[in-house]
């Protein structure tokens, strides 16, 4: 199993493959000290501390993971992308906490990428509704859909969740997705 990646395309394909390949690729990015140091330096320059840097670094990797899995990542340098996301998220956080008047801080504004942090992350209200949908779905369905979305094979899902066969896993996944769509139908008016 690969745990050292030579280039960005290897990382992207590992994340898309899912399972342990994805875990290793994400761990590899997370441990990239060089980019993390840049993020840390940037955040400490804009009223943040080490913990803020760590939180933003993780959130940026989550965005990258989601974008790659959903085929929304359009190539380019992965670490440059993560750094750009980090800056955008930190800008958004400062804006929300009113720690800084962004208009008066052109340097920070210049460093923000075109990606709008509002687009990158859901609002708290939206997250609350989505979490309610998941709660009502039940634990087993959450596990099945989680594994399915991470591209685990039906056979692997069956083994991991002690289901009798891969056909049973497929059937359960279909039922759970339908159930979640029903919840979405009900809850979407609250969004």
């Amino acid at each position, binding site marked *: 199993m690969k745990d050292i990646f030579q280039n960005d395309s290897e990382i992207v394909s590992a994340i898309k493959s899912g399972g342990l390949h994805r875990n290793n690729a994400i761990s590899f990015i997370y441990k990239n000290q060089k980019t993390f140091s840049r993020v840390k330096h940037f955040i400490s320059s804009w009223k943040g501390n080490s913990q803020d840097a760590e939180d933003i670094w*993780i959130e940026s990797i989550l965005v990258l993971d989601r974008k790659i899995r*959903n085929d929304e990542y359009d190539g380019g340098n992965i670490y440059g992308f993560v750094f750009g996301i980090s800056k955008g998220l930190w800008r958004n956080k400062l804006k929300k906490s009113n720690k800084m008047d962004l208009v008066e801080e052109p340097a920070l504004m210049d460093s923000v990428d075109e990606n709008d942090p509002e687009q990158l992350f859901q609002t708290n209200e939206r997250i609350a509704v*989505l979490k309610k949908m998941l709660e009502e779905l039940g634990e087993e369905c959450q596990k099945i859909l989680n594994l399915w979305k991470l591209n685990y094979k039906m056979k692997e899902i069956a083994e991991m969740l002690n289901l009798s066969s891969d056909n049973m896993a497929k059937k359960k996944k279909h039922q759970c997705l*339908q159930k979640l769509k029903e919840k979405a139908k009900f809850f979407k008016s609250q969004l």
Partner: protein
Amino acid sequence: MEIPHPNTEKYLKNLLSPSEKIAFEKLMNEHPQLAEDVTNEKLALEAIDLLIADELRATLKNTPREEPKLIPLKKSNFRKWSIAASFLILIAAASYVFTSQQDLDSEQFAHNNIVLVEEDIATRGDDSSLEIHATRKEFVQAQLLFQQGKYQEALKLYQSVYDSNDLSPEDKDIADWNIIMCHLKLKSVAEAKTLLQELIKDQNHYYFDQSRLLLDKL
């Protein structure tokens, strides 16, 4: 329950070709039920992504970050190497002294060089073929006697099994060597020498090299 359109998932994952995408969007315009189904599935997938993000966030928060390693100064490296080298010199010197003493003490040499085979027998203890190989049992018995310090009895038994011609060539070589060890323990150095000289006539003997070395030291 609605039956999902086969292209819904591909549409949401941007996996449709441009022409397929246009066709699917046209279909959604014509069928509001399909459009609603796609919206619901999109929201469902967004919820699953939230689940995945929560899980990954928790994992990363528990993943240790490797701090940059500090390279020690050359001065401290030199000190470490000096200590290591001193230890090596001490070990080499002690080894030399120990070997020299061993050369002079033929009894101790015999004690240290008796060839152990009880482990071999123990692993084959359940083997019924051992009943047939009574000779080998005696051979092991001889070794036990040697370990108990009963060298005379051990020698007798070794010679007995040796003369029976039931031993395998490997065991025969071991018996040759152990008989010599018994003589050394019994201070029959001359006898040991004679046997060693006999042994080195066979260059294919397993203990040929050791025998030559031992002869030089005696």
